[in-house]
């Protein structure tokens, strides 16, 4: 289940998302994107809590964050 999506080509590999992810599940990939940067990648989407810390600290608005709909039955 994809909780965060990183638009790899827009990433500048600044690592701020990595620094601020409480789950420590982001890292820089071992390849270069078309701009010569090592883009961020997620290690384990399942550990993601959709807290959006990464997205809020990303200077390039590269990251989108999603949360699975709460099970309506549980919620009510």
């Amino acid at each position, binding site marked *: 289940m994809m909780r965060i999506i990183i638009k790899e080509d827009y990433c500048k590999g*600044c690592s701020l998302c990595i620094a601020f992810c409480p789950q420590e599940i982001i890292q820089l990939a071992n390849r270069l994107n078309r701009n010569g940067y090592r883009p961020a990648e997620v290690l384990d989407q399942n550990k993601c809590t959709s807290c959006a*810390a990464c997205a*809020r600290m990303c200077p390039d608005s590269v990251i989108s964050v999603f949360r699975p709909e709460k099970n309506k039955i549980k919620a009510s």
Partner: protein
Amino acid sequence: MKVVFERSKGLLNTETHYCPGCTHGIIHRLVAETLEEMDVLEQTIGVASVGCSVLSYQYFNCDMTQAAHGRAPAVATGIKRVLPKDRIVFTYQGDGDLASIGMGEIVHAAARGENITVIFVNNAIYGMTGGQMAPTSLLGQRTATSPEGRQPQTQGLPIRVSEMLATLDGASYIERVSTHDVAHVMKAKKAIRKAFLTQQEEKGFSMVEVLSTCPTNWGLNPEESLQWVKQEMVPYYPLGVYKDRQYKGEES
């Protein structure tokens, strides 16, 4: 799946030229989100200044005018004064632009109570031109033009712009915020929103001073840069609201 966070429609779909980790990008996002949320993108005119954010006219999804170095408040005044009142006009200025060459313009826009919003990005340096001293550079800070570190005897003392402008009756809302962690980024967003609302309610001049990084010219990596903001800049530039009061001629 619910969308928790996605790229603001207030930003155009382009890459920026900012260096990796530069918080100009975060501040852009906050402004864009605010305008999007207030649903005023179609009636907003932004004024890009001369500094690293000079190309911000390629990034914001609203009409943009590019102003001469330091003169964004004057350009914004010209725009705001001739357009219908529902238009939102903001400037986006660096500390060299606003606090050095543009000091006269910002003081007077504030004194006039010009009904515009100023986003003031204080990164304690001239980013675009390669890291020279800004009026906001800290004492001891090494820059291209203070190679031995800024000395008070020769290079003077850093200017606290928010505090200074807050002394002006014309200024309605002034707050200093930071971008050094998630909580502060969210606070910054609130301040920016408040500033634009001040304008929308025709209360006069509003400014948010945002402490920002320049990893490239500070010679630090992006994360260290945020630490430097927190540890070095915030103590000299205390965060908080410096003015939140509209001057009523009748009152005084």
